[in-house]
């Protein structure tokens, strides 16, 4: 009897060990979240662009805001329902109104999402997902933008300016780890109008707030101290930390003066990762 119990126990643990159909993950919480499709644009419902890889992934971004809907009206009214994605961390309503108080009730929670006077910008938050409708009570005109916070990667199509006639990729490189982990490629484009933009493909960096992309004159910075020892230039603050992303380099920025791109976290003075730029032939 004991022998056959042992057979059962060994067989059971062998099956769990296969992790087929996530059986191991069912018993022991995995480090990797379930693979989900990435977001396909900064606005919910953006259609997948042709030629953009949007495979399901277990990688996660630092939570970022994706616009869901812009609503506007005058006085009290019920606005059409919108959908908050199943995996959304939370959602928010942000906007302006002109006079008196504004109260926004949601179908998903008893407490009002917004209950304030129209002085500047009003903001309120909700946490339920699914179909949500809002009841807005106000005296005058108002405009609200609904956004949902996601941690899925964002996969954007190339900017039209990157593919326009006269635009070309001038440099590229692959990310390597410094203080944290990163993967993916960076490509710098010279646009037809003489400005520059930058694209990250299949990119991931250990998620955190306040991450910046910066150019460095070093060919391959190996440490934060190394990075700080040379000239660098700010490119952009990264609101999304995973996916395939586009960034326009600020006017006057000249990437040809630099040899690498660094993911930098200012508050911690930490170079998370870097990619050496090589000319594209």
């Amino acid at each position, binding site marked *: 009897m*004991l*022998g*056959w119990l*042992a*057979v059962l126990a*060994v*067989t059971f*643990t*062998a099956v*769990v*060990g*296969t*992790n*087929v159909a996530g059986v*191991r*993950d069912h018993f*022991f*919480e*995995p*480090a*990797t*979240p379930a693979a989900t499709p990435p977001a396909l644009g900064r606005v919910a419902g953006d259609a997948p662009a042709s030629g953009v890889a949007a495979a399901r992934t*277990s*990688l*996660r971004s630092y939570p970022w805001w994706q616009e869901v809907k812009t609503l506007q009206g005058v006085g009290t009214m019920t606005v059409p329902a919108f959908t908050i994605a199943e995996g959304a961390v939370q959602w928010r309503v942000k906007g302006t109104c002109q006079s008196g108080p504004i109260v926004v009730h949601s179908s998903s929670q008893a407490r009002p999402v917004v209950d304030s006077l129209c002085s500047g910008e009003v903001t309120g938050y909700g946490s339920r997902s699914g179909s949500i409708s809002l009841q807005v009570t106000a005296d005058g005109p108002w405009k609200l933008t609904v956004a949902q916070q996601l941690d899925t990667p964002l996969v954007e199509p190339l900017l039209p300016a990157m593919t326009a006639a006269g635009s070309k990729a001038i440099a590229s490189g692959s990310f*390597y*780890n410094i203080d*944290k*982990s990163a*993967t993916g490629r960076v490509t710098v484009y010279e646009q037809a109008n003489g400005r520059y933009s930058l694209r990250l493909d299949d990119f*991931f960096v*250990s998620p955190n707030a306040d991450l910046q992309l910066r150019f460095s004159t070093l060919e391959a910075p190996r440490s934060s101290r190394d990075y700080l020892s040379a000239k660098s230039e700010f490119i952009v603050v990264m609101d999304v930390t995973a996916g395939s992303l586009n960034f326009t380099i600020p006017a006057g920025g000249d990437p040809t003066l630099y040899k690498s791109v660094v993911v930098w976290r200012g508050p911690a003075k930490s170079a998370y990762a870097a990619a050496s730029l090589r000319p594209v032939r």
Partner: protein
Amino acid sequence: MTTAPPLAAPAAGPKPRPEIVVRGRHIPVVLPKRTDPRLKLSATIWTITLLGLTVLSFQVSIPQIAVTVLLCAAIEVGVTYRREHVLVWPASALQTGISVAFIFRVAGQQHADRWSGRGLPIFAFVAVISLLPKYFIRHNNRHIFNPSNIGLAWALLLFGPSHVFSEHLWWAPLGVPILVAFAVIFGGAFWVLRQVKMIQLATMFLATFLPLIGLFALFGRTYWAGWHRGPVGGSFYWLTIALSPELLIFTFFMITDPQTAPKSKLGRLIYASLTAVVCAALILPQTTEFGIKVAILSSLLVTCALVPAIERLVKRIEARRSPEAAAAVAPKVPLARRLAIGLRNPVLVVVTVIAVAAPLNTLLLSRDRKVELIERGLVEKPVQ
């Protein structure tokens, strides 16, 4: 001319056997002999563990080591006492315990946290599954699997890379600490293996395994490891596997276990080369350090399960060479009958499940992209 026999020494009476008295009951105590090779092996592994705790930054704590070692010892003392009513010094179990604690790690364990109690139940579980097969999975009065090998391999496959791992293949950059560790491993190996006559077996394993790993490196195989920027490839692939302290310990102190290796010289050579081939075959598709370490451990589960078959094969080979050996070979039983007998024997079923599941699950690891994400540090391991 003849020589007179030497004068007999004065009779000294039998040496009293040590015993303890519990509630009036005399319980014999069996202590280890100084020449016991297990003590030498323990001394070697303890030395490396101390190096790991002090200068090699092993991610293991003193409570984790204590729980594993003491639980193994308690199980062995308890089982032996229950079976033989003798208190035996648990030399083998202590050896198993320190081998497990020396290699096994739980996710989230910090290098410097020497008093961490993280994952103690997991360490206890590994201690239990290392020791129990020794008493219950047996053939011809010998246990089939090396205790620490089965505990480590099974636990790594069961819990997966999100929760557990084994010590890194490459412990530290080349320097004094790692050179001292190599000296202890090679010195300990020579000290132990010479006594148990296993140097030839270990050499045969390495002679088969190292060229195979060299071929993999030559053909561009790489793997991801948390301690290395980018994939490990080329000559460093070969170096970090072939000269990995983990692999050397596996070679010198696991596959050479006299209790689980074949008895005959030819059988040992077949077993060593087969282990090397299975090990290399399981390593080939792996793209992560975790997968490679599990592949190394799993290979021995396969070949240990095949030891009875290897011994039968050796007897048949010897039977062809000499008529005396032929007489000793048992008549061939038809396969269908052997299967029918086997299916009624739970021990045989368990051995088969382990020998099939271990390599299969190891191969499945190579297809699991999440393992690579963990190894590359692209996802954080959960805090337990």
